[in-house]
């Protein structure tokens, strides 16, 4: 098993994609794919990272029968209709704007502008740009670019992508995921969603530190 920079970037890319997929409205086919991904990711030395135990707890839920395990209903309750009157919307604008009494449109438009400046023009056309799955998918895309740059030995390219990753983590994910995580816990959802949100929280907090470490440690 190799643990080079390319492999680590690919692992991180896979985790972002996995988490983004798991946070979409549950679909049996999608969850079958995720179950397969768990098997693959378990071979990628994830215990070397602090989020390893959170990943293990999440992985144990798979395979999942979406209907029988009540995920479809649980998803709507947690993120839309509410559990005992509590809802935890999976969108950044709720935590950054709505809870502070601001205007969503300006925030979302600004986010789309950021995506365009990263060279990701398509985001936001079909899905909410500030939905957690979208933002995790954006990070997955950046990790993909990073892995390619490592593979091509393009150190400047790596640095450039790491800057974008760091910026997005600092300005978005690590700002709103911790309060989102706390709100989900307060809603007392299905154990799967508790473990899923724990993993997202552990992962993005780790990513912020880890990406910074790589940036600072990079030399030609």
């Amino acid at each position: 098993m190799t643990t080079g920079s390319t492999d680590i970037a690919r692992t991180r890319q896979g985790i972002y994609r996995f988490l983004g997929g798991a946070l979409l409205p549950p679909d049996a086919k999608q969850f079958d794919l995720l179950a397969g991904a768990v098997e693959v990711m378990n071979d990628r030395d994830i215990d070397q990272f602090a989020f390893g135990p959170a990943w293990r707890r999440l992985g144990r839920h798979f395979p999942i029968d979406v209907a029988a395990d009540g995920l479809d209903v649980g998803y709507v309750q947690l993120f839309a209709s509410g559990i005992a009157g509590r809802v935890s919307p999976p969108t950044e604008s709720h935590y950054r704007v709505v809870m502070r009494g601001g205007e969503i449109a300006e925030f979302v438009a600004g986010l789309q502008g950021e995506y365009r400046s990263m060279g990701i023009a398509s985001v936001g056309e079909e899905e909410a740009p500030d939905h957690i799955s979208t933002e995790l998918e954006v990070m997955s895309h950046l990790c993909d670019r990073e892995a390619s740059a490592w593979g091509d030995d393009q150190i400047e390219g790596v640095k450039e992508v790491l800057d974008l990753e760091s910026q997005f983590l600092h300005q978005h994910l690590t700002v709103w995921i911790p309060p989102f995580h706390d709100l989900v816990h307060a809603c007392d959802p299905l154990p799967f969603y508790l473990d899923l949100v724990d993993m997202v929280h552990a992962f993005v907090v780790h990513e912020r530190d880890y990406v910074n470490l790589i940036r600072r440690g990079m030399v030609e």
Partner: protein
Amino acid sequence: MSTAVFVCADSPDILLDGVEVNAIEGLCETPLRIAEQLGGADRVVLLLHESHYDLADVQKALRSVEVDPLGSQILDVPLGISESDLEATLAGLRQRALAYAGSRPEHQKPTIPHVFNRRSLFRAPRPWYRAAPMVDEAKCAAVDGCQACVEPCPQGAYRWQQGRIHFNRDLCEPCGMCVSACPTEAISIPSTTPKMLAAQVGALVGHGDAPVGLRFVCRGARSAESVPGWHEIVVPCTGMVPGTWLLTALLMGAGSVTAASCADADCQRGLDEHSRTAVDLARSVLTAADLDPNLVPLQMGDVIREPIARTDFTAPFTHAGDAEAMLVLDSISPKGLDVTHTGSSLGVVTIDPESCTLCAQCAQTCPTTAIQAGFEEDTVTLSFNAAACTNCGQCTIACPEVERGAIRVAARIDSDLLRSGRRTINEGVVLVCESCGKPVAPEPMMDRIGELLGEEFEDTMQFLTRRCMDCRGLT
């Protein structure tokens, strides 16, 4: 909650109050082998051999069996340690591990020992993790103006802005200075909590009959060789240990207590003065109490004294515990304590009634409510409770008349004041509205405003002093 103890194989056989000690050959090189004998334990104590293991690998192995590395205790077996000392050390570490209350992702700060370069395309270095501080906003008093964590941080990781503390994780090199400086105990490092320290010290002093010596030490300053009877209490940095903690450990039953200096760790953090000050404070207090200052020797290795007390503290190694410790010391001392020392984590506030305007900013800012303001119909009272004062100095930052000497905080331990509870430190008249009878403001405050505005505003001041906020608009 249960603990498993693992020893790299060639250590002596140990029996620890019926707890099985698992000896594993080659544990330093293959820490994953703990999985073979973990037996469902969720806390782990590891005795390894210095420089034979990679911390990143050990932490990975712990995570693979779902044990939190931050709560696990890793001891580099000191050279020449006796069986009885090793048993006591293990008892202490085991209790410390059991007292671990868990961590959040924000508490894990990764470190990568190497740089990334072309070689890392094939083998990137594994991270290892240190316990980092985290601010509990529900407990933080920044909204009242407290910024006690800002100045002590040697990396400048804390910033106060508009009633909030902004913590820059990237700058933080976890030393714990913020933890001991925070008056409300809103900042914590999960691997070094008061409960964990109390559990470890309690187990060490309660193990066997021989008096024990304790040395607060950072990971880098640990002694490679065992000194008989002495045990090390690992903290992120000895700079975070106030002198009162040394005295607390002494009063819990240790024979001698000291703190390592940064020079022992070859550390460039520049906090050496803090650990020296802590030792000096403890020795000064002992001297003032007519007790032997060498109960807190300058370094480990001196003769271990007989314990002077065995106290069950309510909350040792906290601010409340500091005050409690000083009162215990006072009770066994032939004379009362009154020590002024820069290293004191207890303070005494004094007010100059001539320059204090009774504006009560000090009380509003005081994070521990050591200073309180009481308003009655036509009087305002400032009161002070020395047992709650942490010498954080936030009251002097808030006071608008500090330059005129209105308020002072002395780094002082005064057992009479600690015992006497809350007492009045200033009081004055509150002007009442001539229209509705409601309070307007403290008289000295209005006098001071009038003084600053000068004679040309005398009429305005006359008006302001006679009408409350509600009635001013009606006149």
